[in-house]
């Protein structure tokens, strides 16, 4: 199991000095930068403006948040495919609450968090304490959320609640990065609130995963349950916690999505779970567990968004090209991951046997 070594396998060679997690993250970041630079060079008009990047983030803030939750669950070796459904349910519930009950925005936020938390608690309990396969539980969760969405309200509609519209329209101006339009007027660059939320989530999870005991426990449980148990980690509690956090983040992501689109509809966030899984995988998280990085996930989600934009601006705007390119990208990343990991496994095996021999030699010498 190479995954167990993630924390401390520092071996010779150019790439060997990095852990699996860092290596996969580096690849993702490089790919994103190269892709964006290529877009800037070959498709100058749009991509030179900083606002293009900000627009990408505005449109994908919710995806980034969902992917963060997904990464956490995948690090512990599980999967949560209910996040898309929860997003749709949150949008619809908040929309109905704001418009038909005339509620205020603050309570709507609490409602969103509550829905997410409820899904997280129930799914986490079933998976961690009753040992039911995560795929089945969260599949049922997805079905339930999608079904409930249409039970709450059937038809899509736009929210007209004043407080919410004001919140939705709030733009944070970024100084010095604006652009000049054709008439010569200066236009400020802006991001939506959702982007700030997404970046906060990324930062918080990064700190938790890197420097807290709970965070390291997630890696330990995902890497090898048995050893984690032997180390005295409460495996069930850790697994449970990962699903609760993922559920909560699905609630947050749902509200951010709601702030971006400003409407409730049963078809919202269709396939978001698959995009979130794809972002995590492109970001270097492995479904076997124990390997993953939140920064990688951020770049994974951004890569996914960038490639969609590139595909549509190159003129391949037939709908099918987006699906095919994303799949091709996913395929390449997966194969690269698998090749790297298997080569590393072999190398580690030979190195560790060499280590053992050396240690024995030393032992003999000292004796």
């Amino acid at each position, binding site marked *: 199991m190479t995954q167990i070594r993630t924390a401390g396998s520092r071996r010779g060679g150019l790439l060997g000095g990095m852990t699996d997690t860092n290596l996969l993250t580096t690849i993702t970041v490089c790919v994103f930068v190269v892709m964006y630079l290529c877009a800037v060079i070959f498709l100058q008009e749009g991509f030179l403006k900083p606002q293009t990047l900000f627009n990408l983030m505005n449109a994908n803030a919710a995806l980034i948040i969902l992917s963060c939750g997904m990464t956490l669950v995948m690090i512990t070796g599980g*999967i949560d495919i209910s996040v898309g459904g929860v997003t749709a349910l949150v949008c619809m519930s908040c929309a109905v609450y704001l418009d038909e009950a005339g509620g205020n925005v603050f309570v709507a936020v609490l409602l969103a968090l509550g829905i997410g938390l409820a899904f997280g608690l129930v799914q986490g309990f*079933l998976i961690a*304490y*009753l*040992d*039911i*396969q995560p*795929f*089945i*539980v969260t*599949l*049922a*969760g*997805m*079905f*339930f959320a*999608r*079904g*409930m969405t*249409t*039970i709450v309200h*059937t038809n899509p509609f736009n929210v007209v609640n004043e407080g919410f519209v004001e919140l939705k329209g709030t733009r944070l101006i970024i100084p010095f990065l604006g652009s000049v339009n054709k008439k010569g007027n200066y236009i400020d660059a802006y991001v939506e609130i959702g982007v700030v939320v997404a970046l906060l989530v990324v930062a918080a999870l990064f700190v938790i995963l890197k420097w807290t005991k709970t965070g390291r426990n997630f890696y330990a449980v995902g890497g090898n349950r048995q050893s984690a148990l032997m180390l005295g980690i409460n495996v069930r509690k850790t697994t449970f916690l990962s699903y609760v956090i993922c559920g909560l983040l699905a609630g947050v992501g749902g509200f951010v999505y709601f702030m971006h689109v400003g409407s409730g509809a*049963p078809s919202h966030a269709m396939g978001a779970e*698959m995009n979130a*899984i*794809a972002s995590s*995988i492109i970001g270097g998280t492995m*479904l*076997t567990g124990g390997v993953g990085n939140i920064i990688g996930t951020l770049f994974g989600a951004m890569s996914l968004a960038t490639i969609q934009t590139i595909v549509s601006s190159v003129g391949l705007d*037939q*709908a*099918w*090209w*987006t*699906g*095919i390119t*994303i*799949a*091709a990208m*996913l*395929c390449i990343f*997966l*194969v690269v*991951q*698998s*090749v790297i990991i*298997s080569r590393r496994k072999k190398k580690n095996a030979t190195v560790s046997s060499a280590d053992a021999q050396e240690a024995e030699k030393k032992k003999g010498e000292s004796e």
Partner: protein
Amino acid sequence: MSEKLDPRGKGSVLSGLLRNQIFIPFAALILLALFNLIADPSFFALNMKQNSAGNYILSGNLISIIDNGSELAILAIGMTLVTAASKGQDISVGAAIAISGSVLLRVLCGDNTRPETIQAPIIVGFLVAAVASMLFGAFNGVLVAYFRIQPMVATLILFTAGRSIAAWINNNELPIVPGEEFTYFGGYIPGIPLPTPFLIAILCFIITWLMLKFTNIGLYSQSVGINEKTSRLNGLNPELIKLTTYVILGLCVAVTGLIKVSRLSTINYSVIAKDIEMDAILAVALGGNSLSGGKFNMAASIVGAYVIQFLTTTLYKFDVQATALPAYKAVVVIVLVVMSAPVVREKFSRLMKKIRSSGHAAAESA
């Protein structure tokens, strides 16, 4: 597992039944049937009527269940094998059905989307579609077996791209197949009152039974799923066996695609066989098969598939909206998996033991 140790005669017959894996889907089926019988006995009514083509056909809820459940049952065959050998599920079957259907239409209609007559015999179209979907199955299989990517992630690729590829094959046109014969596969053959999909499904079951009986594929895929290393030491080739199960699933997908396309004589790339992968996985789980590979019971999976369709039809009967259907399905699924969870079962059997032993003690003291 207290039932296993129960020495009493009557209990052993019952416990034998309880221990059999096929008990789970049958119990669910009986529960559903009883529920319907109590709620509305006319649910089971069958009558003979004339359809628009002038043939006498059977109609009723039961017929609609065996008609619409057949696609799922055929898929469940392949999914069971894949689950057993590769310890994971193929989530791309819905997208693969779209591709297979699209290829079929492309061959039958040629370049023209509204041809007067079909451009190739149906059997040729089906064979080409079967080869195509087996190739896509092999693609999944290679990723899973040789690159050692987890099945769900490997098939995510085709899941993302499948419907796009399907639209691309026909240039996003929606060709319509002319002629009566093509509709037979998804409808009724003149003179036979049973729906053709059910007949096709039965044919598939017989072939599967023969395959499991006379070849080693069933045994080998179970042994690979239980312990890959041991299988290799025993001279099996685990990679090849995994690949084979994915190719078999590809064939099942092609048959399902034929039925699905034949029902409409055309295709809708984004809607055809939507969410069927979820139902197919559910059928396997409902049949009491472990989703983490190993031993399987094919008959239980097939019954599981029909149970799912029974549930769907029952819900429709109670005026549940099609879009709200998943919520109810989810509740049923959760109840089923919680009941069959090992932890819950153990607690339950311990409770039963306690009750029984206290009953014994009471009888002895009396």
